[in-house]
Each structure stands twice: as structure tokens, then as C-alpha cells.
């Protein structure tokens, strides 16, 4: 296989990604949520925390487009404010696991030996448990809060990145241009940073994009189980949980549920298109990592 410097390929192909209608739709939905997150305090909405128990369980109407919840709070306002809990934390979570997983995976793949053994056995340990169960255990031990939920998910999600990274680095390490660099006097860390990492970053980016939706779901899931957001914070997962016990008031769970759905789908559309456009070999590389 010849090494194709990816930088040259990436430049023209990124715009190609946005030309795909699915990616564009996803990006627009996401952009809309980002805008909402930024300007929601300026919108003419009711205070998402203002209770009015006399007006609880009102069906959607002109006064309350998404109805009111069990404490008479405006569901539209809470749904829009909810993006402020979900999006930034999902970004922090994915960025965190990307960095931690990549660094550990790259070290394991490049250095090999004992370092590889230790890192990958710890990863195996995490893999041995179902993600959500382990996250629940950690979150329950740390106590309910959104930040603790993020920490719990960080602990369970970095090994994914580490495994893929390790496989990619293992593949790149033997490439002639890397060997050439080493022969010209580059130290292991310089070689890793300058020759290896740039050539494996694309599949990692795709992996991160596809992981976003997953992480948002997991975060909402922990809140749904009462291990994430602390009331009265408007958060989609806990709003859905409130709605589930009030079956007859369908609007309680429907609107925050649709919000989660829209963000997850948006991230997946972007991730899919990025993968197709950015690096046709990614699918193979990701699969190869599981060997």
C-alpha cells in the first residue's frame, strides 16, 4: 500500500461532504440547535423554572405551544433550554474521550510492549461490562449530577477510541515514510506526532462524529435514570422520564424525545457523510481495529 498524504486529499473532500443532502440537513439541524443554545435567554419564553401548579398538565395550546408539565412549567421553554445541558456536555464528553483514547491508543500502538499490554488490558476490563451498566455504576458511586454523568461516560467510552487508534497506529508505524523519518533521526514521539498522527486523524474524526449521537443518548439515558441532571435543571433525559410516568399527558415525553432524536440523527448524518467523503478506507480501518 502506498502512503497517501491525507492532507492533500482532505482539503478538496471536506466541501464535498457538505454537498451531500443528508449531511447538509444534519448540519442545518445542528446549526439550529447551536443557535438556540446561544440565544435562548433572549427568546420570548417563559422562565423554564417558573412553577404554576394550578396550570399543570395543560395540553399544547397557543399560550403553551408544547403544553405544561406536572408543575405547570412551560415544556417549550424547558425543551429549548435543555439543549444547553445536552450539547456542550456531549461536546466535552466526545472531545475528552477522543483525546484520552487517542493518546493512550497511540502510545500503546507505537510503543508496544508493556505499555501496550497495560493500556489494552485496562481497556479490555472496561469492555467487559455493558457500557450503560458500567456508566450507571460509576455515576451512582459519584452521586447524581450532569458533570458526574460526563465523568462516568468518559470512563466507559475512551477504550473505543484507544482501540481504533492503536490499530491505526500499528498500521502506519510500518509504513516506509515513517521508517524513513526514523532513519533520518526523528525520535519516537516526534515521529508519532509528525508522521503517524496526521495520517490517522481522519478515521478518528469520523469515529468521534458518529459517537456524538451515542453519547447524547447515553447522557440523556443517565438523566432518565435519575443519575444525571439534578432537578429542576431542564434536561431532555429527565424530562422524558417525567413524561413516562404521566402517560396520559403525551406532550411531556414527546417534545424532549423529539429533541434528542433530532440531535442524534443530525450527528449521525454528518458522521456518515464525513466518513464517505473524507476517507473511503475508514470503514475497513475501523473494522480492522477489532481484530
Amino acid at each position, binding site marked *: 500500500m502506498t502512503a497517501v498524504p491525507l492532507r492533500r486529499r482532505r482539503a478538496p473532500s471536506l466541501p464535498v461532504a457538505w454537498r451531500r443532502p443528508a449531511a447538509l440537513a444534519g448540519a442545518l439541524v445542528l446549526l439550529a440547535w447551536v443557535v438556540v443554545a446561544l440565544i435562548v435567554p433572549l427568546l420570548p419564553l417563559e422562565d423554564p423554572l417558573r412553577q404554576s401548579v394550578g396550570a399543570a398538565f395543560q395540553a399544547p395550546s397557543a399560550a403553551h405551544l408544547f403544553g405544561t408539565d406536572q408543575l405547570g412549567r412551560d415544556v417549550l421553554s424547558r425543551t429549548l433550554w435543555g439543549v444547553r445541558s445536552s450539547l456542550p456536555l456531549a461536546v466535552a464528553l466526545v472531545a475528552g474521550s477522543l483525546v484520552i483514547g487517542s493518546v493512550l491508543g497511540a502510545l500503546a500502538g507505537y510503543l508496544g510492549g508493556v505499555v501496550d499490554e497495560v493500556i489494552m488490558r485496562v481497556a479490555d476490563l472496561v469492555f467487559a461490562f455493558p457500557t450503560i451498566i458500567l456508566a450507571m455504576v460509576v455515576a451512582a458511586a459519584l452521586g*447524581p449530577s450532569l458533570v458526574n454523568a460526563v465523568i462516568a461516560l468518559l470512563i466507559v467510552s475512551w477504550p473505543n477510541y484507544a482501540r481504533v487508534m492503536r490499530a491505526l497506529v500499528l498500521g502506519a508505524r510500518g509504513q516506509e515514510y515513517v521508517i524513513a523519518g526514523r532513519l533520518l533521526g526523528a525520535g519516537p514521539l516526534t515521529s508519532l506526532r509528525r508522521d503517524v498522527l496526521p495520517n490517522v486523524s481522519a478515521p478518528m474524526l469520523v469515529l468521534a462524529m458518529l459517537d456524538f449521537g451515542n453519547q447524547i443518548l447515553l447522557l440523556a439515558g443517565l438523566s432518565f435514570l435519575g443519575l444525571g441532571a439534578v*432537578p429542576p435543571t431542564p434536561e431532555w433525559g429527565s424530562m422524558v422520564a417525567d413524561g413516562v410516568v404521566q*402517560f*396520559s399527558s403525551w406532550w411531556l415525553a414527546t417534545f424532549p424525545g423529539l429533541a434528542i432524536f433530532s440531535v442524534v440523527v443530525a450527528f449521525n448524518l454528518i458522521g456518515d457523510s464525513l466518513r464517505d467523503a473524507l476517507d473511503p478506507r475508514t470503514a475497513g480501518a475501523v473494522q480492522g481495529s477489532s481484530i
Partner: protein
Amino acid sequence: MHHISKRASALTASAAALALILSGCSAGGSGGGQQASANKTLVVDNTFDLKTSDPARAFELTGSIVDKALYETALTFEGSDVTKPVPQLTTYSMSDDDKTITLTLDGKHVFSSGNPVTIDDIVWSYKRVQGIAGNPSFLLSNLSTGKPFTIEKTSDTTMTISDTVANPALPYILPNPSLGVLDSKTLEENGGTTDKDDKAESYLNGKSAGSGPYQLSSYNATSKVVFVKNPEYTGTAPKYGRVVLQNVTGPSQKTDVQGGQAQLALNLNSQQVNGLESGSIKVAKTTSANVGYLWLNQNEQVSGGVTNDPDFVKAVRHAIDYEALRTVAGSGSTQPGGIVPSQFLGALESDENNTTDAAAAKSDLASSGYAEQTVTLSYPTDATLDGVSFADMAQSVQSNLQDAGITVKLNGLPIATLLDSFRAGKLQAGLMYWGPDFPDPSDYLTFSPGEGLGLRAGWTESMSPEVTKAKEAAIAAEGDARAAAYQAWQKASNADGAFVPLVQAARYAVTNGVTGVTPNAIWTVDLASIE
């Protein structure tokens, strides 16, 4: 479009026809006259928490409904009134020192096997409750000393139950369906003993051995329990010859009772009963005996110097919007005046210390030493107050206190974790509930300074001598003076105490075409009284 609307109208028509047929069925069930209904089946929907039908082992809501139908008790309560024990198998008298209750058999009752109910059966059944040491065994021991009651046969028609200390609550304990009297001869033939070797549970889960209005026809702890009339029953024969108690979730209970497939639904919430009443469908509201309360820790180390400040406590009492809490808890819910539930002897109707008064809250807070500290309010996330979420109540209280200028942070915990920390007295403030062990105010003395619950809130005897004095007066009171003494104790606690009684949630019994449903705080409903 035309095509669709035609189909839609055809659907509507057939749905209407189906509804007519179904309502015809239910009308037949109820309007068929008393003679016809003797052979009719009554269907009752309940969300099961059933573990066993063995009274000595059952202490769940569904278990109490089942055991109430199958077994009789020495004493009982009439309808919904749990303030006055009345004779069932026996009459009773209390000794002058209130330590001993003497039961005298009336000799008229017969088990479904045909054996007469004897004093030996009652003694055997009570000793079995103590010996098996199952969930209800605490009923026959003193809650504060932990010592089991002494149960003795004194003649062929009399027996005594004695406590080591004065215990005026004895007659209030005996009506519990877990103290149902079993046919000891039949049970001994089927593995029954009065100690831990007892093996009669599986027998009792297949056949009953009681003198109650019904006997067990079939039993499945996860799906349904079927009762048929006990031909030997000596009381007023129940109207329905057969009763099916089935495990159904809330939303399905609603459609069942609307469609007439069930005549009684026991687990609908306030949202579900909203607008349900029409035609033959009636909604009976009662108040649950579970009291939701707020505690404020009085221990200096735990209170952060905030929640032990008497003026701060007063401010909280006046800042809470009790009406909002009642709205959250559903229509039919009540604010008890004290910690004793509204339907019990000695209940306090209201107390000016626990009233919503924003101005008083502001001035009390101003005269307290409160300086913007954050108060952590804990609550259970996986338990409800009769279906009302503690998270909702906590958020309501948080918003009330914040309006008064008090910063509150919510701390939802699984109930097991919460109880661990609460029992250790480590939580600054929080919401919990107390379900009665038996309907007597003495069960609530634990909410006194220096007692079990009081100490959980860091409330020691030296902090409130007035309350301790009132508690001692309540213990010493006898007969008709007890109610007033317990009310005085609660007034004292409301004036200077760690607990704020908040709300008793509503319970709903939805009927379609039947009457005679009298909700009861101990056994939910007596199936035999339904007509």
C-alpha cells in the same frame, strides 16, 4: 378523501356498537339484582405488590387485600373508621396499667374446613407470626423496647397479650390482616409450625385456612387471585360469589373500568381519574395514611448553623405553599395538622405554625441568622408518596423557599442510600414519608426529640424539653384523654421541632356499577363489602 371518511365512520359506528355491548354487560353485572349477583363475578384491578398470601409473612398492600378477604382477626375496624377497634372473633378489655389486653372468644366463628375457631387457633396464629419472624412480626413486639409481646391462653375462651410497658395501642394493632387467625389443625397437618421450621406457606398459597368471607380458589402472585365464597362464613354473606383480583397497570385499569371489564380499579392516579366520572363510573377519593414530611436537621454539625436556627425553621414553615403541594399530590389530598395522619385518633386538624404566610416567612427569615447559605434538600428518587413523585414535591418546596429568599440545592438519592444517611443523622434537610405500622398515634412518638426519628433529624431531648414533656403526657394519657394529649404533643412539636408535616396524598377507587367500596387505611378495601 371520501373513501377514508366512510371507513372512519364505519369504524366509529362499530366502536359505538362495541361500547354498547360492553356497557350492557356491566349493567347486567350490577343491575341484575342481588340474587343474580350472588353467582356473579366481581373483577377488581390492582397493581400487585403481592409476595405471599400467608398472613404471617405478608406485609404488602395487595397481601392485605387478599388476607382481609380470607381471614378474620380478633378485633377489626368498621368501614373506613380506624379510630375505634371493634370485636370480630373476640371482644377485648385492657388492664388498668394498659400493659395487658384480654381477648374473650365469642365462639360463633367457623373455618372453611368446618373446624370451629378456638382460642388455641388465635394463640397459635400469633405465636406463628412471632416465630416465623417474617415482615409483620414486629406487630407483636414493642417498637421501642424491641421485646416481643407475651401471648398466653388463660382459659378455653380467653387469652392475654402483654407488653412489658404500658401500651394503649394494643387493640389498634390486632385488626391488621397479617394477624389473621389460621386453622391450626389444618395447618399443622400441612407443615405449619410456630417457629422458623414452618413450611405452610406453599399450602396457604394454594388453599386458604381461614374463617373469612372468602376462600382461595386460585392464586398467582404475578397475575391474579381468585376467591370464592366461604360456605362456612358466619357473618353477612358477601354479595359476589366469586371475586377476581387481577394484576393490571394503571393505564389498563382505566380502560378496564371504562369498558366494564373490571368493576373496581384501585391504582389510578389523579391524572387518570380526571374527567373519568360519568354514567355508572364513580370515583371515590380517600386520603392515604402515609404522611409526607420535611425534616430540618437540628444538629449543629449537620445543620451548617442554618437549619437548627429556630427562626429559620419558622420561616420555612411559613414559606411552604401547602396548597401547591396538595395540588401536586392530586385532588383529595390533605395537609395534616401534625405528624399523625388525619384519619387517626389524636390527629390535629391544622396548626397556625404550618401555614403559608409569605410576610411571616420574610420577617422570620430576617430575624434568623440566615446569610445566603445553600441548604441541601435530600429526597428519595425511587420511592413515591402514594404515586406522587418526591422530585416534584422537592421542586415545589425548593421554588417556595427560593421565593422567600432561601437558596436550596436538591439532592435526589436512591431510597436505600438516603435512609442510610438519614438514619445516621447526616442529612441537613429532606423529604420523606411515614407509613403507619398500626393506626394509633403512639406509632408517631418516634418523631420526638431523643427518639428514633427525632435523632435522625439531630433532634435531642435537651433541645426541646416542652415537646418531651408533652410526649410523656401523651404516653401517660388513658382512654378519651389520649386524643387531646396527642394533639398537644403535636402542637408543641410544630412550635419547636424538626419536622414539618406536608401532605397526605389522595387515593382513588374507581367503580363501574358497584357500591359498598369503603377504602381503609390498613387493608385498602374489603372485597366482601362490595355490592
